[in-house]
């Protein structure tokens, strides 16, 4: 089962990058134009294009890149000539840390709120939680991020507005630069998890086996947090797989707002400047991450639900 999942990585990556490459080519502008600058002459641009290899037929350009990929060579940026692979390696940990932190925030906030909501169905508390989660869903993360920067960083001065301190330079400092990005990025995901948990718990709490638990006089806490939750988590985990992909996408914008040196910023620049080796490279890595996360989700199903193992 694991192998089957990993085997989908390759074709998905190829198809994904092909799509990205085609989209890249379809939009106006080019790397040569961007590198040459606004005052360049058409001849200068043409020369640059030839140097960059951009005048070769499209399939050839793509093929060359793909061949390079098989050798572990992500190619070089068309604009600054830097090794894409190296650049990604440097920036990847930042994005990963941010995404994971956002996911953790979503789970730590969402699951308990969902359980609380389900146990007090139709009460005012339930309504409040549903309302707040509705806001969380509606407000785009980057907007929340900008608000947060404005209030928390600029007006209150509690945290630095931009910049990133890696863990290697101290956990405390790292957390200071991580907190706001993670919280804002995770807000939408937390809302989703809250609702999903609530829905799943409500369904499980109505099931015959939970009625058995009540009839047996099992301690209430055990009924909710042990016997009901494990069943509810199955559908929550499914959502986590979907959220992970969305988080990667939203991470891009958050990195912009907080000026974090992650892959998101790298990607935005590459797209605007038509730097396709970079775009492709980042795409491949994103695809790999999403597939990996979904693989983990599949594994957790098997751990949580014995019926799947048979």
């Amino acid at each position, binding site marked *: 089962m694991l192998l089957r999942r990993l085997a989908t990585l390759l074709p998905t990556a190829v198809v994904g990058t092909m799509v990205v490459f085609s989209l890249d080519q379809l939009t106006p502008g080019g790397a040569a134009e961007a590198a040459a600058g606004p005052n360049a002459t058409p001849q200068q641009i043409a020369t640059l294009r030839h140097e960059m290899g951009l005048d070769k037929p499209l399939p050839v350009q793509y093929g060359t890149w793909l061949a390079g990929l098989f050798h572990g060579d992500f190619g070089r940026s068309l604009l600054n000539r830097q090794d894409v692979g190296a650049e990604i390696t440097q920036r990847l940990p930042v994005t990963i840390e941010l995404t994971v932190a956002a996911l953790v925030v979503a789970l730590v906030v969402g699951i308990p709120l969902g359980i609380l909501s389900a146990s007090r169905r139709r009460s005012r508390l339930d309504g409040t939680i549903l309302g707040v989660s509705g806001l969380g869903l509606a407000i785009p993360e980057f907007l929340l991020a900008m608000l947060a920067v404005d209030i928390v960083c600029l007006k209150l001065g509690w945290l630095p507005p931009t910049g990133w301190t890696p863990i290697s330079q101290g956990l405390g400092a790292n957390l200071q630069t991580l907190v706001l990005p993670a919280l804002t990025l995770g807000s939408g995901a937390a809302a989703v998890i809250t609702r999903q948990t609530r829905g799943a718990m409500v369904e499980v709490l109505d099931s015959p086996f*939970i009625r058995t638990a009540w009839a047996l006089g099992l301690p209430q806490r055990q009924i909710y947090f042990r016997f009901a939750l494990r069943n509810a988590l199955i559908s929550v985990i499914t959502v986590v797989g979907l959220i992970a992909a969305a988080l990667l996408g939203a991470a891009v914008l958050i990195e912009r707002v907080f000026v974090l040196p992650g892959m998101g910023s790298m990607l935005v620049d590459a797209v605007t400047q038509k730097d396709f080796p970079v775009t492709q490279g980042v795409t491949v890595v994103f695809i790999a991450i999403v597939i990996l996360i979904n693989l983990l989700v599949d594994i957790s199903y098997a751990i949580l639900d014995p019926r799947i193992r048979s």
Partner: protein
Amino acid sequence: MDLLSRSGWGATAMSTVLGRPAQPYRQASAGGGRPEPYLVVSGLGLTLPRNGQMVPILDDLSLHIEQGEVLGVVGESGSGKTMTALSILRLLPRGARLTGSIRLGGQELLDLTEAEMHQVRGARVGMIFQEPVAALNPVFTVGAQLVAAIRAHQDLTRSDARARAVELLRTVGLPDPGRRLRQYPHELSGGMCQRVMIAMAIASGARLLIADEPTTALDVTIQDEIIRLIRRLAVESQIAVLFISHDLGLVARLCHRVVVMYAGQVLESGPASELLRSPLHPYTRALLRCVPDLRTVGVVRRGIPGSPPLPGTVPVGCRFRPRCEFAAELCAAPQQLRPMAEDHHVRCARAEWLAGREVEGR
């Protein structure tokens, strides 16, 4: 005797109706110095919120069970028999209102707070349900659930609880108990799951077992084994059993006494042998007529035309009146549950007339 009876394979002839009831309950006013039965329900009323209104579900419900006795509660869909069980356990939806009295081992359950009641559940009352596989948690092993049931009311270490779990599974007749503990509910058959449920229900020493249609979803050969088990537990461990069923044949085989329910009321109650041989209420008679007799093949028995009234739409007088072949003017008045013989009660104004007619022969 034919070959099969000589096989000696635990061939116990199960009599159609269990012998005389265990110590009939006499009203205190009759001067009995006897302790009251383990479970005494008196004048129980239940209303539930439905679509914004309070709908009466149970009306003036009374029954009692001694330890070691099996009481059958018989009724069709909508008669309120499951609600009776859930009322005793107080496992009712929010907004439910109970009136009357439920006394368990001398203690009034309706006086208890929810927290106190939750201590009673499992410890003094156990319940088993209709679909045994669905009634067990699918993502936990049988062992985990059984151990949780044991430790809920007893202070045992995990290993002691496991040992007790094995013992309990053996008591309910589950072969290879050690292995079963490690299995999941979906790996067991319906009959095995029901045995596990019974083990969980009696794990903490409950003296009252409520069984709500426990064999309806099981094959008939397995059903037979389960009711043997229940009878054995009742008699050997002196457990009072409330056995809910729509199957009169099953009730005849298992129960000492029977209560017949219809539209939230008790219409007749008494010893099984008497009630099933000489029913006093027209509904009981009609219900008995529906039960097929295997000896008359190819003869279709009549049912009861119409259907029971839905909760909240019950007529003022006798609730069975619209479907009763003996309905008369006096049936329009609210009917009371009256004693006809020592332990035989009926809610019908025409009961005497009907009984007399029986004697004359039809």
